[in-house]
């Protein structure tokens, strides 16, 4: 009998601690599949964050070093500069990347560090119990914005992918989601492109994943998937924001023609 579905080689045989319907587990699996397909397990070093994914080293069967909250890209910078031929990725939530670690993330991107950031945008602080995140959308109720996020008091949601794509150091940035089979396949393709950019030595790549957090959104997993379509992706439009390899190819074709 042919095996059509199994655990990626780059995953350990541990059961996820994530809540039912959580986007983290899907993102983990996609990253592991990409690592397998690119055959880079032995040269990959991952940097998990403080956040719900803090135990990612229990799931990924690649070398991992945990960062303090928000410091992943700084740590990844240190690793990559010392070991430029390794594949280094930082895995970060929205609080981690867009609040406490915005400086480390922004500057790693601006330096064009040849690393990949997987950015899980679930519009809340998952691990600490559903507080407002920099990416919470206007009107969104969280434990620290109980009547809904108001721009006059709490500012606007930060569009990380748009902002980072303005930095010349970035090479591939795409915003995807994992709320349907089709979107999951698309996300996997995006992750693969991002890692490929790094393998090709092109610079900083970032994949933003709109990711359900049914527990803190206080919704069923199905409603959470719907909320991503109906609300979240209105604030954070899906799509490729930057694709330097594609632009280069287009440029070459123009030259040829």
């Amino acid at each position: 009998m042919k095996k059509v579905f199994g655990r990626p080689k780059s995953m350990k045989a541990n059961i996820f601690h994530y809540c039912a319907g959580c986007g983290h587990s899907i993102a983990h699996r996609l990253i592991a599949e990409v690592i397998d397909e690119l055959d880079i397990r032995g040269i990959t070093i991952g940097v998990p964050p403080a956040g719900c994914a803090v135990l990612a080293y229990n799931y990924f069967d690649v070398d991992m070093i945990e960062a303090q909250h928000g410091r992943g890209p700084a740590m990844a910078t240190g690793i990559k500069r010392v070991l430029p031929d390794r594949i280094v990725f930082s895995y970060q939530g929205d609080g981690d990347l867009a609040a406490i670690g915005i400086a480390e993330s922004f500057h790693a991107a601006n330096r064009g560090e040849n690393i990949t950031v997987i950015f899980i945008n679930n519009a809340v602080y998952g691990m600490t119990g559903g507080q407002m995140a920099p990416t919470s959308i206007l009107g969104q109720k969280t434990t620290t914005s109980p009547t809904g996020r108001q721009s006059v008091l709490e500012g606007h949601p930060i569009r990380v992918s748009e902002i980072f794509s303005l930095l010349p150091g970035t090479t591939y940035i795409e915003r995807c989601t994992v709320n349907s089979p089709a979107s999951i396949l698309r996300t996997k393709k995006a992750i693969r492109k991002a890692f490929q950019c790094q393998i090709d030595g092109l610079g900083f790549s970032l994949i933003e994943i709109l990711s359900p957090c049914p527990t803190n959104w206080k919704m069923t997993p199905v409603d959470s998937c719907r909320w991503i379509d109906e609300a979240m992706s209105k604030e954070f439009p899906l799509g490729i924001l930057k694709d330097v390899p594609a632009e280069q190819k287009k440029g070459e074709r123009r030259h040829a023609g």
Partner: protein
Amino acid sequence: MVIGEAAIRAGCRFYAGYPITPQNEIPEYMAEHLRQVEGGVFIQSESEVAAIHMVAGASAAGARSMTSSSSPGISLKQEGISSLAACQLPAVIVNMMRGGPGLGNISPSQGDYFQATRGGGHGDYRVIVLGPATAQEMADLTMDAFTLADQYRTPVMILADGMMGQMMEPVVFKEPQPRVYPEIYIMKGAGAGKSKFIRGLILDPLDMEEHNWTLDRKYQVIARKETRHELYGTDDAELILVAYGTGARIAKGAIKRLRNTGLKVGLFRPITLWPFPTNELRDLAKKVENFLVFELSTGQMLEDVRLALQGFARIGFHGRPGGVVPTPAELANVVTRQYDRKQGIIEHH
């Protein structure tokens, strides 16, 4: 800059830092010279926070790594230093102390003694702290710092001040020791083998407790084996000054003056500030009854001296915080005011 050159000679291959006076000569030296060395990486980071976490990454990836800063910047690095201690990663951190608290000023101070010797960040941990007093010692201790950091897999701090950064003294660099650091601690991808992880998060309190005791056992060994100090004129002394770094240089000047007037004063100079040479200091109290602590602070090392000597000797104190650097003459005057041949230390604490 002595520290930068000593670090490169000691095999430092990664430096990250953020400008702050009075230590900019170190990053500037590294920017020029570390990049010329094969595999040498220099990064001017976006903050001290980023720098220390870059250092942690580089250290985990197998490079001898260093950062430097001055007081306010060292406060920002504490999160990372705590992490380095928790993850048992070697690194060298230089603090060229300036007047504080707050933004303070840029003058030489010793106000960060507590922060340095009590761990500095959150959690139950210690950092080895070396306090050089001469340019030669800055070179030697910088090189030793890398060896100690590797040997004990722990962050090591060089605690100096701007005064020492400006010193012009001849220096002979010693032969660097080859690095001894087991491959198993280096994170470089799993290859075909088992993957590993480095973490500071240990959720189970019993496991975390065990980790704390593991670290503590290591600190006990360091405390037993690694104390260093200098004795100066203590053989015939009736009064001993206790001072380190710039304070000790001033103390030596004062001692020369006092001896010229016939007062037999000596110096006990801790070189390791953590571990503090407690037993070595207490040994002196067998012969000498009077001690005077001198610091460029309101009295921080004073507490360690009390721990060593309380009940064994009379302890006086003179401090000038805030970036004021007194002359040897001032200190000599203080000694004659505080010390009476018959009564001993008068204003004893």
